């Protein structure tokens, strides 16, 4: 690794899948050795993260304020089987059942009813990949029925910005010299003139105006025109939902929003809009980024974003750095780095290991000159956990050296690892771990119940050993200094910093951190089973609600209209990007049929994958107690569809997918499981199986990741993976 680092540290690729707790030790390692970095977000919910960072500045997707919410759209939320936005499984169901006790209604939007269990008051069995069309139709109806919170749109969004016919926003320069800034113009209804935003008493949201001979309209007016044809009847054809059902949901959402009302929460009066959306992993679809933007516009229209009972996202309104970064999106010329950052392919780039794999297989195609040579794979198993296996199989062979840090011999480790560094599971110190439930701030720590088993060590020990061997543990810029920075043991807390000239124990690191938090007992507090959770107190409404934040929404102006996206499209075109890359860089979410619709008609089913509550990603199916409850892969199919194909419950079936761009087909064999709570044009396969290194995996069957595709049409827009593909089903096959 050091040999490669000396030539170019970027060519050392560190890749992480999942672990718990604050990732300070990861951050410190990457900074200490200067490597490139990849996460798991492109297979999780990052299209939604990017959409929310862009639109309202939060680093999260969507969840409602359950404490006061009365009407929730459970949009692709696998209520009874998975986590939701930001939290794992336990916390959200606890909030949900309490809200149900209060009478909160749930409209469940998902091809599968199975995911909602009995908690769906209303089920919209939507066709996979068409969520944007539904969101646009809901916006259309909210506008048509005048469920619009104009004060919010005028004050906290860029909806009043005047937009030219070419899509650019009219701006003027305010101030002089270093103080000069470009400010958007709005139409002041009081003076009947265009003035800089902030100077108008009542910025117009609607109407058409003229400035210096150019026709201009407020962004909201542009959006109104944009969704004018997006009627429930239009969306019905696309989504497979009855138009009256869409219209009714829009009406219920608008009525329950109580536009204009306020609520006093812990002494703070805030707008009260008890409607919201829970959405998370469903963002990983081809149109995911713009779909999540369109979905966010639904609560934006009624002023529910950041309101009591309304639409929340992160647990703070502190702006993510991408909010400012996305104000201008610069598209660079080649050569690109191997992740294609700032490229004409993915100007907004989540960082997708699959993209790296594709680039490694054909760097010339993507204008990439330098490829990674060394990989450190930490708790990540691309071969079974990510689409798509063939590309990883070939591309990872190109690494000169692969080190794996993992508690298990994963399939990826089995194929590629030169060295496996076995990591402990629970028998290690790990933290700090947020123990908040959204309403109370709290922190906890994992305390080892015993010494690490076999030859394993906790990750922090492994990273310290690695850095020591690499000569990057001590001194300025070394791992220990980076640990101090990542844990905030600097500046006014520098007295708690760990020394950078001697190797500490992990317990010492956490003891210093605990003391820095004002916990007098240090790590002993967390080691005491009668304490163990450090409760800071209730979350202040001034922190929780965007309207009450100081300044409101942390000073963000919510990007209803996405001018910089359109600008990115212009740059992509100028640099010769193909339409499939730039087509979704639009100022407003714009519906188009997903690429998969180009597959031949005999690929008549949509394949979705899903999470079962018994398992965790692809790393628990070998646990015998869990495998007894959820023993094997299967293909859920509606009995009506199965009957047409002559398939009985439990029959062996072959599922063949088709790549609408390349024509490639892939297949897996599994058993059919009848499921009435599933659209007849959709089949579902859980993603927990398909492993082969552990003897307990034997006979469990395949993973849908084996037949999904990466590349154009399936990795899109923000370099995020879509978990949709068209498939055909046939009876028979060899298990």
């Amino acid at each position, binding site marked *: 690794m050091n040999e490669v680092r000396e030539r170019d540290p970027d060519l050392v690729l560190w890749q992480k899948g999942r672990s718990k707790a604050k990732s300070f030790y990861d951050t410190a390692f990457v900074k200490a050795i200067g490597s490139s970095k990849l996460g798991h977000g492109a297979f999780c919910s990052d299209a939604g993260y990017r959409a929310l960072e862009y639109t309202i500045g939060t680093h999260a997707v969507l969840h409602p304020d359950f404490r006061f919410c009365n009407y929730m759209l459970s949009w692709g939320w696998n*209520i009874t089987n998975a986590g939701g936005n930001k939290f794992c*499984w336990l916390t959200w169901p*606890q909030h949900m*059942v309490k809200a149900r006790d209060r009478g909160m209604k749930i409209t469940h939007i998902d091809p599968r*009813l199975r995911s909602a269990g009995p908690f769906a008051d209303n089920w919209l069995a939507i066709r996979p990949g068409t969520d944007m069309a539904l969101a646009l139709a809901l916006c259309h109806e909210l506008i048509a029925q005048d469920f619009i919170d104009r004060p919010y749109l005028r004050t906290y969004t860029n909806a009043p910005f005047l937009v030219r016919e070419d899509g650019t926003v009219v701006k003027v320069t305010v101030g002089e010299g270093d103080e000069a800034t470009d400010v958007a113009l709005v139409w002041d209804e009081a003076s009947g003139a265009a003035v800089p935003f902030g100077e108008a008493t009542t910025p117009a949201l609607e109407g058409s105006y003229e400035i210096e001979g150019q026709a201009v309209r407020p962004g909201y007016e542009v959006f109104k025109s944009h969704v004018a044809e997006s009627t429930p009847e239009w969306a019905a054809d696309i989504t497979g939902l009855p138009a009256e059902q869409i219209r009714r949901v829009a009406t219920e959402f608008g009525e329950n929003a109580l536009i204009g009302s306020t609520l006093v929460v812990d002494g703070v009066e805030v707008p009260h809009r008890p409607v919201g959306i829970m959405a998370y992993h469903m963002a990983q679809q081809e149109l995911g980024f713009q779909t999540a933007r369109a979905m966010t516009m639904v609560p934006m229209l009624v002023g529910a974003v950041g309101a009591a009972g309304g639409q929340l996202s992160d647990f703070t309104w502190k702006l993510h750095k991408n909010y400012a970064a996305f104000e201008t999106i610069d598209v660079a010329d080649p050569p690109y780095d191997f992740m294609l950052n700032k490229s004409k392919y993915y100007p907004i780039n989540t960082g997708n290991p699959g993209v790296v794999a594709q680039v490694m297989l054909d760097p010339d195609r993507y204008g990439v000159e330098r490829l990674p040579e060394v990989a450190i794979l930490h708790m990540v198993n691309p071969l079974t956990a990510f689409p798509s296996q063939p590309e990883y199989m070939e591309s990872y062979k190109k690494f000169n050296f692969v080190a794996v840090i993992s508690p298990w011999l994963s399939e990826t480790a089995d194929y590629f690892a030169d060295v496996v560094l076995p990591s402990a599971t629970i028998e290690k110190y790990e933290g700090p771990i947020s123990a908040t439930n959204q309403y109370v701030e709290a922190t906890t720590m994992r305390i080892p119940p015993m010494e690490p088993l076999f030859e394993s060590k906790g990750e922090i020990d492994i990273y310290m050993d690695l850095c020591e061997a690499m000569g990057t543990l001590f001194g300025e810029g070394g791992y220990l200094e980076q640990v101090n920075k990542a844990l905030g043991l600097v500046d006014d807390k520098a007295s708690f910093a760990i020394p950078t000239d001697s190797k500490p124990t992990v317990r010492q690191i956490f003891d210093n951190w605990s003391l820095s938090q004002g916990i007098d007992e240090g790590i002993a507090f967390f080691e005491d089973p009668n304490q163990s959770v450090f409760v800071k107190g209730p979350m202040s409404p001034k922190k929780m609600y965007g309207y009450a934040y100081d300044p409101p929404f942390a000073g963000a102006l919510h990007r209803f209209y996405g001018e910089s996206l359109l600008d990115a499209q212009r740059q992509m075109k100028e640099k010769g990007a193909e339409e499939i890359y730039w087509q979704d860089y639009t100022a407003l979410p714009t519906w188009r049929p997903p690429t998969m619709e180009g597959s031949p008609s005999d690929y008549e089913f949509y394949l979705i994958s899903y999470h079962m509550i018994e398992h965790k990603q692809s790393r628990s199916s070998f646990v015998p107690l869990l*495998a*007894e409850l959820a023993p094997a892969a299967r293909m859920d199919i509606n009995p009506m569809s199965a009957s047409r194909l002559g398939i009985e419950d439990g029959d062996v079936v072959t599922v063949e997918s088709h790549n609408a761009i390349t024509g490639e087909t892939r297949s897996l064999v599994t058993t059919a*499981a009848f499921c*009435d709570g*599933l659209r007849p044009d959709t089949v579902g396969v859980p993603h927990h199986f398909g492993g082969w290194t552990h003897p307990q995996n034997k006979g469990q069957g395949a993973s849908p990741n084996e037949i999904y595709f990466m590349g154009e049409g399936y990795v899109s827009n923000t370099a995020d993976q879509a978990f949709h593909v068209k498939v055909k089903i046939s009876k028979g096959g060899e298990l």
Partner: protein
Amino acid sequence: MAKYAMVVDLNRCQGCRACTEACKIENNTGQGMFWMHVFRFEDGAFPETRMSFLPRPCQHCDNAPCVKVCPTGARFKREDGIVLTDPDRCIGCRYCELACPYGVNYFNWQKPKDSQYSDVISWDDPDIQAITGGAYPPYKNPDLDKEWGPEGRRTAGGNHAKGVMEKCTFCVQRVEQGSLPACVDTCPVTALRFGDISDSESPVSRFIRENEAWSLLEEAGTKPSVFYVGGKPPSHSYKEVERPKARV
């Protein structure tokens, strides 16, 4: 004397089967045995489909048919309402299994060691034993082998001797030590409640009274000590989905 009862709140149950697993860990039951089974049901054709969940422990009936048919008195009901099995008296005739309308009885076909979840790894391997100290995971809960209650019988499962019946005990070994049954303690959404219904003001009594509680197969006259709130009794149109499957 307390009279124990359980209430299952179907308005809250997520069907997650954490209760099932908690039961297995606490009681070290063998493969394929689910003293606390959670049904997942579908009812109706698309798009009018509904889903429901139904946790089903032993109903600890006041008029328990399993007790009536037991020829040896191995199956008996305590004064506090808990229906238990004495493995030292059970002759394995399985009459209780036939008599019970709820399907909660399991017969131990194998020795405990063979029915556990260790069919891939050899726990007798000296290298493995060097690490495990000779233990056979999951470890044997010593409480299961103790004598409980005024009867002084090994009624907490008796460590699952081959050839005898077993079923949910309301975790008698925990209740007698002041704890809740493992399933109740584990449920993340408080869908399971447990308490003394001889006290009309106990939380569980009030919860039953304030909600329209019902019992499974009320027409059978078994008078269960397990009550349900919310949902409705399963009907013949219900289809069970996602059944657990014994691995051996």
